[in-house]
């Protein structure tokens, strides 16, 4: 008889231990997760498709549907890629395979990773395991919901302006957006090339560090990647003596931050202080004032170009018409949903002759200021701390018809993305019985210090990753 595996509570590191000690076979483990998916994913819709026949000598993994998987349909949450089966593996998928990780399935995402709730998926929204009337965040809501609900021990997401960190926060997971250039983008369906980064999502900081060590490092297929300057270190210490944590003074006046989120964030800072860290004030004035508008020029500009290849000529669905131009127009009109269309229009406008200097050109200058501002803050502090999301998970439909309100979800995650810096989100408590995320930002290649900080805080906070409604009476007590 197959051993009972409690996927809801199992961390990736524990799962690896089970396989290593041969208490559970890789196939049994894979099957256990498929069973959990069978039980709980009808409600959550974290997965767009699952893979039944496991290949791999280790634990399974969920991959966001923007990650190309050879022989397995990859749609990036868009109708325009329905039926598209890649002929090659993304480098991160290949590295997971090489590490023996078996592919559980492809997880839901906002179309082309554009969104903060997964409601923009052409295949229907995912739901938050803590409260299925609420969104799991986005764009990587599928991976986050899967990890939180025990439908995968870990997974990979992609983050352009917060798509790993924000859903991790809303679902009570740990998520890392790595330093730009440390993880290959080869095979990732591109949204905004100068911002896109792949990163891990799991229940625990050590799981995230472990998965990061599997996927990181230079890839000859991606010219923007570099070798890690130092190896990934799995964190062990539970003290933070000597660590300098900076808190942007601008948070004070950001009304968008909910009181419950602010309270949990401040408790986490107190804990950090108790663990020996110095907590001080830093200054990121441009980031919170101009980060969002800057992002919503650069990202759509790059997207308008990256999404030009979806013309129906070589792959994906095609709507036939009398002329080439009409065929392309109709294919794109029927294939893209409202959000990609909106961003293609924004981006096309920002790059147009006569507007380039005022929009795209200006945004690049602001980006340079953001980089400088973060560098200055990180010269005085080892880590910058903010809440990850200004709010906890919100009800489905709440912001779906208000793009600006939806864009504001990423207010706190966007600036460091523009600066190319790493960010780790860890759960730091509950507000209204929903998880709150703590965002830790570091300098370029500062992942090890984020892991160390995140791990120590994780121990001190003692956050229970099991959604309240699935806890046993003993756990609740």
């Amino acid at each position: 008889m197959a051993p009972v595996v409690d996927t809801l509570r199992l961390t990736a590191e524990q799962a690896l231990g089970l396989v290593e000690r041969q208490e559970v076979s890789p196939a049994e483990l894979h099957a256990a997760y498929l069973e959990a998916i069978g039980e709980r994913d009808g409600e959550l819709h974290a997965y767009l498709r699952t893979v039944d026949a496991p290949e791999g000598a280790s634990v399974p993994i969920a991959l966001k549907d923007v990650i190309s998987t050879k022989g397995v349909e990859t749609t990036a949450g868009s109708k325009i890629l329905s039926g598209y089966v890649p002929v090659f593996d993304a480098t991160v998928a290949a590295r997971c395979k090489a590490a023996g990780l078996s592919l559980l399935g492809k997880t839901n995402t906002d179309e082309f990773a554009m969104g903060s709730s997964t409601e923009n998926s052409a295949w229907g929204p995912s739901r938050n395991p803590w409260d299925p009337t609420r969104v799991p965040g986005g764009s990587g809501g599928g991976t986050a919901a899967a990890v939180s609900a025990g439908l995968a021990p870990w997974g990979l997401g992609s983050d352009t302006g917060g798509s790993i960190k924000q859903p991790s926060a809303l679902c009570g997971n740990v998520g890392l957006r790595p330093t730009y250039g440390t993880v290959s983008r080869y095979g990732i369906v591109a949204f905004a090339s100068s911002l896109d980064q792949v990163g891990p999502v799991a229940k625990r900081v050590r799981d995230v560090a472990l998965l990061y060590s599997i996927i990181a490092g230079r890839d000859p297929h991606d010219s923007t990647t570099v070798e890690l300057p130092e190896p990934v270190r799995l964190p062990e210490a539970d003290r933070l003596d000597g660590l300098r944590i900076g808190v942007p003074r601008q948070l004070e006046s950001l009304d968008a931050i909910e009181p419950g989120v602010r309270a949990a964030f401040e408790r986490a800072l107190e804990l950090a202080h108790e663990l020996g860290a110095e907590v001080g004030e830093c200054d990121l004035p441009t980031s919170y004032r101009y980060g969002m508008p800057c992002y919503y020029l650069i990202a759509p500009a790059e997207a308008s170009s990256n999404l030009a290849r979806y013309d129906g000529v070589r792959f994906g669905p095609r709507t036939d018409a009398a002329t080439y131009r009409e065929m392309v127009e109709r294919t794109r009109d029927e294939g893209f949903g409202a959000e990609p269309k909106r961003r293609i229009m924004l981006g096309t406008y920002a790059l147009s002759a006569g507007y380039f200097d005022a929009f795209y050109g200006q945004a690049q200058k602001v980006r340079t200021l953001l980089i400088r501002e973060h560098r200055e803050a990180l010269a005085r502090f080892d880590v910058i701390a903010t809440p990850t999301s200004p709010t906890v998970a919100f009800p489905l439909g709440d912001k779906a018809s208000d793009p600006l309100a939806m864009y504001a979800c990423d207010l706190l995650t966007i600036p460091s993305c523009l600066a190319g810096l790493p960010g780790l989100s860890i759960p730091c408590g509950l507000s209204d019985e929903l998880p709150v995320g703590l965002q830790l930002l570091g300098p370029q290649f500062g992942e090890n210090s984020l892991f160390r900080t995140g791990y120590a805080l994780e121990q001190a906070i003692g956050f229970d990753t099991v959604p309240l409604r699935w806890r046993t009476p003993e756990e609740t007590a």
Partner: protein
Amino acid sequence: MTWEPVIGLEIHVQLKTQTKMFCRCPVGFGAGENTQTCPVCLGLPGALPVMNRRAIEWTILLGLALGCEISEQAVFSRKNYFYPDLPKGYQVSQYDLPSCKNGIMLLPTANGDRVIGIVRAHLEEDAAKTIHVGGHSGRIGGADFSLVDYNRGGTPLVEIVTAPDIRSADEAKRFLQLLRQTIVELGISDAEMEKGTLRVDANVSVRPTGSDELRTRTEIKNMNSFNFIARGIEAEAERQIRVWESGEDVRQETYDFDAATGKLTARRAKEEADDYRYFPEPDLVPVEPSLELVERLRSELPELPAARIRRIEADLDLDRAMVLVTGGLDRLWEETVAAGADAVAAANVIANAVVGAGVEIDAVAPTELARLVEARERIPRAAFDEAIAKLGDVGFSADSYLAQEAVSDTAELEPIVDAIIEANPGQVAAYRGGKEGLLGFFVGQVMKETQGKANARVVSELVRSKLTG
């Protein structure tokens, strides 16, 4: 009022690297359709470009040969537009920061060097090949269907843009001959117009001679030989002169040159101006060649064609020097002269007889060629021609041909000359009436009669004395 053309050229050169610009698919002709492709050059989702180091180096090498400044930082941009030959919906091309800029090429002329400015030479990727089936225009509009072969897509392409410094169709042609030879000698491209590895568009305007204004220009495309380029430019300049002289204005248009009719056809004007929405390609890093690399490439530059023309012209004349150098014949010529041949005679024999016989130039032994040049009037014509034809054979020796004597005995030749004069009274009258060029006709007839065994110089003297006597 007289007019002068103002001509600028845009030249595309396909580099003969082994692999494509941004992926490692092979570059080459003749493979089955869409067999030299991969996720990158098909623009599949998630595929990323990786630069071809050799293509970068060759572009810099060309830039150095054209006297360009080599940019410490060159940047690839995206040129965005929809067309089925462009799989990504954008072409990756250097734009505002090209690898090479502000160069010059010296074009030797009888009145000194003409300085032709090189505005820029930049690297980009070639588009795929489309075939539009059905319809009549050969264009995508009106076609029943279109086929795309992505083998060519992503081939490295250098675009060279000249300043509007060229002043005649002939000058354009000679500039292109010299540029082509430079490219071929650098070993970076076959630069063959028939194969499309060299493509030229011309920007043409005219202005009153001596003025320095720049009037509205038009662009001519689809010219697939240097001669057609010259004819196209000439035809367009004449057309513009007629337009201005009739009191109308030349409109900015693009013309296709039809080689069969020699006519220019205006392309249908677009309703909207192109907006390519250029921005720096975020999937690539800037090209920052080290000073050491640039200096190494500079040190590898061979003596360039323009310099060689100037050097060998001293012993010849500009036209012969140009023919030898742009034909890749000057090295053989120099060695042949060094082996004792007369400079002008050697140039004539090489440019006419040797090239005409289709001999492989690199296989020719200059010492044997020099002996043939020296003996060319002494030995029978037939023997000379045969020897030239076999020049490229392994171990060729001129000995057996030099042993043959042409018939120089006037007593033996006189009856033949007399008979031919008698048989061609019309030509005789014409010659005596002043058409001295007909001398060759008579000599030719004698050679034919003697099966090439007569000494041409003796025959021609004999004929001349008979006709004038």
